[in-house]
Structures are given as structure tokens and as C-alpha cells.
């Protein structure tokens, strides 16, 4: 098996197991609490509005915003790690269809793997910091994935020394 295929398949499976473990941990230890916070803070804000208490209203709404922001990203991270892992494995299996030299294919495979790890990691880091760095990491990760996938697609369409063709 070529190095690029091996990198995609093994990296993808490791990432899938990591993503599933992360999701399981999140579901057991964090998700229910997060949903409780989201619901209670929003209800608390409206109840404070009914009491004409603007201070509690704003505090509750701010708490809702922060909890929702973190929850959305946690779910995104879980879903994207597993989804991208699947893509890596599937592409790894069919990577012989990419009609490029092995060195370029290895480069594309590394780009895909780095992007698949870094993009959700950047999203996860946004739950710790609202600054520009985590966002830049996420954008860079998604750029790696899109660029490498575009390269692989061109390689599939390109007329090269496609192996094992049976027409």
C-alpha cells in the first residue's frame, strides 16, 4: 500500500475513534448540563423581563449567549471530526484513482489530514478564546481540506496513468 493511502486510512480511523470518544465524553459529562443552562438562562431572561428587572434580564441573556456559543461549537467539532475522518478513509481507499505522482499524492494526503485535525480544533479553541487566533486556525484548517480535496478531484479527472482500468 502506498504511503499516501496508508496515511489517509490510518489517520482517518484514528481521527474517527478520537471524534467518537470525544462525542461520548461530551454526551455523558457536558451536553445535558449545557442544554439545561441554555434553557434556564433564556427562560430566566424572559421571566426577568416580566418582573421588569433589566439587570437580571441582561445577565441571563448574556449567559444564554455564551452557553449557546459553546454548545454549537462543541457539537460542530464532534460532527466535523468524524465526518472528515470518514472522508479521509474513503479517499484513502480510492486514492489510486488520483492520477498524480506518489510524491504529490502524499502532499495532498498530508494536507487533508492536517486540515481534518486542525479545522475542528480551531473551532474547539473558539470555546476558550473569542479572539482572532482560533478563528484563523479554523480557516487555515478548512483551507487545507478544500485545497487538498480540489487537488485530488483534479487528479481523478486528469488523464494520467490511471492504474487497473477496465472499460
Amino acid at each position, binding site marked *: 500500500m502506498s504511503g499516501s493511502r*496508508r496515511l489517509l*486510512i*490510518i489517520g482517518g*480511523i*484514528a481521527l*474517527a*475513534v478520537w471524534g*467518537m*470518544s470525544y*462525542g*461520548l465524553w461530551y*454526551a*455523558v459529562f457536558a451536553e*445535558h*448540563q449545557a442544554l*439545561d443552562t441554555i*434553557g434556564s438562562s*433564556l*427562560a430566566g*431572561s*424572559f*421571566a*426577568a*423581563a*416580566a*418582573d*421588569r428587572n*433589566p439587570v437580571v*434580564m*441582561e445577565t441571563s*441573556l448574556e449567559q*444564554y*449567549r455564551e452557553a*449557546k456559543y459553546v454548545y*454549537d461549537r462543541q457539537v460542530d467539532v464532534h460532527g466535523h471530526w*468524524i*465526518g472528515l475522518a*470518514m*472522508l479521509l*478513509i*474513503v*479517499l484513502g*481507499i*480510492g486514492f*489510486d*484513482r488520483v492520477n498524480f505522482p506518489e510524491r504529490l499524492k502524499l502532499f495532498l494526503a498530508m494536507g487533508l489530514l492536517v486540515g481534518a485535525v486542525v479545522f475542528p480544533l480551531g473551532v474547539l479553541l473558539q470555546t476558550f478564546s473569542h479572539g482572532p487566533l482560533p478563528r484563523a486556525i479554523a480557516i487555515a484548517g*478548512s483551507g487545507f*481540506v*478544500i485545497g487538498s*480535496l480540489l487537488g*485530488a*478531484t483534479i487528479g*481523478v479527472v486528469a488523464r494520467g*496513468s*490511471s*492504474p*487497473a*482500468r*477496465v*472499460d
Partner: protein
Amino acid sequence: MPTKIYSPQLQALTDDPPTGQSERGEFAPFGARRLFLLGGIGLILTGMIFGDIFAVFTLHQNAARVGANLAAAANAALAGNRQAVLANFQNVGAFLENRGTKVDTHVHMIDFGYLALLLAILQPWVALPDGLKKKLAWIFLAGAWLLPVSVYLIHYVGLAHSPMKTIGWASIAADFGGLLVLLATFACLIGLWMHFRGKRGQPADGLPSDRSAEGRLLFAGGLALILLGFFHGAYYAAADLYKHEAQDYSLLAQMSAGAAAGARPVVNNALTGYGQLQGAKAVNIAAHAHSIEFGLLAIMLAFFQPYVSLSARWKRSSAAVLLAGSLLLPVCVPLEIRYGLVAGGIADFGGLLIILALLVMWIGILRYPGTPGVSVTSSPESRVPQ
């Protein structure tokens, strides 16, 4: 008469024992590979049919109830009635949980189906005894069914007789299902590690080398769908995601501040805007996710075309129908905002096309004889059982 183009890989396949050799055990009627494959497509089919039924009969009605209760809560705040606010939010929570568990059922069933297809593809590289691989396939499928069914029941079982404060029995069963899937996947990973550690040669598996017309169509079409989904996701993240998050907060703030100030028009405007915002977010996320998921499905099915025991015409037609539906659905879902039910109906029709194509392929795989001597690299016509 098919034309065979020489390549070293094809030669290697010829030099090895016949490609069917290693997979005979796995693709026997109850072999690990066929279990993963049929079970995976079955999960995807069931998840999609459930999703369609849910979308038609529950999703919109549920969204209307959520909206109505949120409006009632805002109006109760306007009237200064704290108890009514909390009661309406309890209703919102119940409706959202109901909706959330239905969506989770749909999503997990389909995702586990995808994972099963992946594991089916990887079986020749999993260096474990056939009997153990078969057991792992059954454990995986048991967990893959247990989790979504239990998640579906969370709304109905609630916290009844639960030993825990926030997690009910249905959630515990769902987590156990997830654990089974995780264990089976992890065991397969160990098998793969053993394969690579042992420096064994390339397993005799002709599936990745298959270049049939329907396989190439599905592979190329699948890649195009994934790219479409990535571009759409990147555009949405850059143009709308943060704007939508800010709007979500500001509209809720307008609602509560308007209610505290007794300004009914402000509350009503914010409620209308909030409903539209939720719709816009939902269709964009659905289009992004579905495009990529259907692309992945097409690529995975491309590998298994040699096992679809149907005539070449049926195989090509089902591949084309699958791709047409996979494009139609994510393209039409965002158009629902502008064109309403017409676009929604076309999107549902796209989903139906995918279901039909999958069903045809599933039947074809079920018909595959899995007998010695059936080569997976022979021409499509020669693979049709007589």
C-alpha cells in the same frame, strides 16, 4: 467484450489468488463484509425514510409549536406574567427536546450506516479471524440500532425510574449503544494495526481497483458533491454564520427588552425576525451537510458496484438516479426560504430518488451469490448471476 488495459496493479491481482479468495469468507451470506455492507445500507435507508416521515409529519408542525410558545412567552413577559413565561418556556423545552431526539435518531442512524460501509470496505485489511470479524460486525450493528432507537425513546421515557438526576434510562441505553459501536470500531482498528505491523502484503481485494462505468460515475460525482458542500459551508461560515449568531442574540434581547418596556410592536417584529432566522440557519446547515453526506455515500457505493448483482443498465441507472437525487436535495433545500413548498417538494423528491436507488443497490447486493469463482474485476455483465 470488455477491454482490459494493462497495469501493474491489475497484474498483481491476477498473480494473487483469485480476488474472490480472501473475500469469500467475508462476503459469504453472513460474512463480516456483507453484514457491514447490507446492515450499513439498511441503516441509511431506514434513517432516510425516518427523516422523510419526520420532515413531512413532525418537523414543520413542531417548529410552529415552538414558535407559538416562544411568542406566548414574550407576550406573557409583556403582560408581566412571570408564571406564564416559565410555563411557555417549559413547553418550548419539551418541543425542542422532542425535535432534537428525532433529528439525532435520523442523523445517528445514517452516520452509523456510513461507518458500517467504511468498515465493510476495510475488512480485507483487518487482520483478525473471520469468526471474530463476524462477531464484531454483529456487535457494531447491535449498537448502531440501539443508539438511535434509544435516542428516539428519550422524549417518551424521560427520567422515569432513573437512578440519575439528569439522565434517563433511554439515554443510558443510547450511551451503551454508542459504546458498542466504539468497541467494535476500536477492535477493527486493532486488526488494521496488526495488519500493518505484520508487514503483510496487499490483501487480495479487487474492489478499490474496479473501474466500471457506474463506479467511476459514482466516485467522480461523489467528489463533486463533497466539494460543492465544502464551498457552500465555507461561504456560509464566512458570510452568514457570525451574522446569524449575532442576530440570534440581538433578536432575543429585543424581545425581552421590548417586553420589559411594554413595547408590543418591538416584540412582534423580533418574533417574526427570529422565526425567519431559524429557518435560514436550518436550510443552510442542511444543504451543507446533505451535499457532503451524499457525496461520501456515492463514493463508498462506487467501491461496491461489483457486488451489485444486477444488469449493467440497472446499475448505471441506479447510480445516475442516486447522483441526481443527491444534487437535487441540497440545491432545493435553501430555495425553500424563497419558494416555499414547491422547493421543499422537489427536495423531498430528491430524497425519494436516493432512497429508491439505494433500495435497488441493496437488493442487488443481496442477490450477489458470493460463491467461489465470481471475480470482482470481471465485466459487469459476467457478474450477473444466471
